[in-house]
């Protein structure tokens, strides 16, 4: 056999395997997912509509406006202001993620005219009655978990890495593990499966629509199915503006109490 051909073939094989090996490490994928912030929770201004649907198919709608800002990446601050349902209109929620210790959270209710500190340990509880828990929003399990790449799979026509994350702080998390299908081309998770500590599938988050706005990809329509409760929550971002310059003073209790 021609030695040049053998050498070239070897080079090609090495290059190919090198390319496959070039799939980023799981921690790098998670880091890029968090940095990309496709949920619009860390450097964006969004308007969102949420439809809660129970097993009898009866629905309830929430609407909110949210601003967020990274202050010590990947840590972020966010402020959510509800406009629907009517009995929640004017309520506000302020969250400051903390690297160590519980996140700081405040809830403002207009009928009380005061902001109340909300326990940061309530990560397993539903956020405003939706199927999203506080843990789903603070992404601490992803930040602090141990992740491994389990393989690749296509969702629709998009190649995805399958990344499994095990939260390290067992007592702090409601999940035993999280499996995430991350699009290889833009680091947007197209599917997330959350398992409880008995490894029973608890919830599935499915991405139904993504948009690139100003160079940033956002999940603009998604659905969280709670298999245990037979509930689901549909989240639609009706407005997205990537913003890295929301002033720091917007994320204060003083601002939260400005209705």
């Amino acid at each position, binding site marked *: 056999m021609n030695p*040049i*051909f053998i050498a*070239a073939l070897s080079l*090609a094989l090495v*290059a*190919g395997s*090198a*390319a*496959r090996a070039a*799939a980023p490490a799981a921690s790098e994928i998670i880091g*890029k997912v968090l940095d990309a912030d496709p949920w619009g929770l860390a450097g964006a201004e969004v308007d969102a*509509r949420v439809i*809660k649907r*129970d097993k009898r198919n009866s629905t*309830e709608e929430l609407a909110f406006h949210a601003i967020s800002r990274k202050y010590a990446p990947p840590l972020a601050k966010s402020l959510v202001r509800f406009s629907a*349902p*009517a009995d929640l*209109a004017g309520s506000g929620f302020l969250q400051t993620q903390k690297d160590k210790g519980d996140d*700081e959270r405040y*809830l403002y*209710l207009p*009928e009380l*005219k005061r902001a109340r*500190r*909300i*326990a940061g*340990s*309530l990560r397993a509880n*539903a956020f405003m009655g939706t199927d999203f828990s506080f843990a789903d929003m603070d992404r601490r399990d992803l930040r602090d978990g141990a992740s491994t790449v389990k393989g690749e799979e296509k969702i629709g*026509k*998009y190649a995805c890495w399958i990344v499994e994350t095990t939260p390290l702080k067992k007592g702090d998390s409601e999940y035993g593990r999280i499996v995430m299908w991350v*699009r*290889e*081309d*833009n680091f947007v998770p197209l599917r997330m499966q959350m398992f409880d500590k008995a490894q029973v599938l608890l919830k599935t988050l*499915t*991405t*139904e*629509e*993504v*948009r*690139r*706005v100003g*160079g940033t*990809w956002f999940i*603009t*329509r998604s659905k969280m199915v709670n298999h245990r409760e037979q509930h689901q929550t549909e989240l*639609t971002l*009706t*407005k997205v*503006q*990537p*913003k890295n310059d929301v*002033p720091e*003073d*917007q994320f204060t*209790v*003083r601002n939260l109490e*400005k*209705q």
Partner: protein
Amino acid sequence: MTSGNGRVAAALLSAALGVALAARGDERGPDVPPSSPASGADDATSDVVERIDDGNPTTSESPKPQVFAATAPANEERFSLRGFLLAQGIAGLGKAGDPLPNGAPSPLTVPYDGLHERTQLFLELKFARKGAFEAVVSGLAGYDWYDREVQGSSGPFDNLHAGQSRGTWDPQLREAYAGVYWSRLDLRLGQQRLAWGRADSRSPNDVLNAYDLRDPLLLEQELTHLPTPLARVDLDLGAVTLQLVGSPVFVPDRFDVYGSNWALVQPGSPALFRGLLGVAARAVDPAEEEALQPLLSATTRPKGNLTEPTGGARLAIAFPGVDFDAYYHYGFDGLPNLQFDPRAAAALSQVNLAEATPGSLLSALGQLGGLPFTSTYVRRHHLGFDLQTTVGPFALRLDAGHDSAKVFFNKDLTGFVSKAFEGVLSVEYQTGDIGKTIIVELTGLHLSDPPPTGGLLFHKQDLLGLAGVARWTFADRLELELRGEGSARPQSFLVRPQIALKFERFWIKAGAVLVAGAAGSLGDYYQRNDSLYVTLKQSL
């Protein structure tokens, strides 16, 4: 390398790179999806939308996107409107008192409303220009209809619609203020509700706004305080926020003196007051009694001409995990200091109040040359602080305050003024869902001055109590709530168990108000106010 071999090697190298790039799946970087419908023509920043089809059905409702923009519109303006329409029926379970032996109504018998229908429309309109300006106006249109029990009725529902009925309008301008906001400074001018303190039931530091005490258990939480004309400045100093408030006008607590179920004068009040007010009330149509209440509750109010201003400051410090507030306020206690002219008491002691007429009272009191009582408001300094933190699923709050002068009622309804310390230790079990919460509060009060020999109405020199609310929602629709307050010495409780059903914006609530206590307690004083109620509420 020969030229022929070079071409082969170059071709193979290209092939190898192609394999490598194919393995990566994208040769244009992470921002540009290879399969994007628009990706063939766009760059990495142009807007693209993709629908993900993984074979599963998508959501059934998908609102059309409105705005997706990389830059925010300047000076965004927002109007918002919220409010509620409420109808509430209250059926009293108590009894009206006895008439005179001859069957005629006795002026010593305090009126009792067997039925009360409350209708309220509350609206709040807000205009905000993004981050810089805000204007808020809210108002309440209320109408209350009462059916007064006939004296001598044998029990609840014995005389439905057989008594005297009356209706009163209750229009209120709630908040009306404008706020201008800068990066570090907020300025708000106008009528405002500004909540100081952390406690859920009644914070000792919540001294800026007056209380509406006309129905302590059934008023909507938003309506339990009266907004007050205020100038408010908030200065952001980083972890510390300084708030300054001032007001040219004093607004006292609002309560009925006579004629309604939660009025100050009750069957346990001295005969002198019951008789005097009973005879006076006979002189006017029941529908006009409402107009008398301000006169009865205050004969002398602090002047609203800037000569008796009130003002204070709050220093808020946000420590990691702990919020601390310190308060100072120089103002007036919200309750009137009622003093009865001893000459009037002597004169009235000569009158048989059970059979008195307005004429005979006027004759007896005529020599006084004025009202038989005075009702004034006392100046006081208020100092206080609060703390809040969280431990596990619990929120802990501590409120403490000291007033240099606070008004209490003697058992003869005259005022007793003392320095007072108050504290509330609050533990809230949180779930993250406002429909599922349990709050327990330990309340304490200490008066610096010993009460007079006859004792105080509702209070002792030291009083420990409990207050709280337990609310739990099932299946997003059914809500059970128990709210109440009580004390151990003297034993007293006011509780309100309630069941509610929620349909989108509409609530149906039903419950009971239960009041009881040992002699001299608040529960004993208002013991006949046990009642059942139904509330229909439409959020707007």
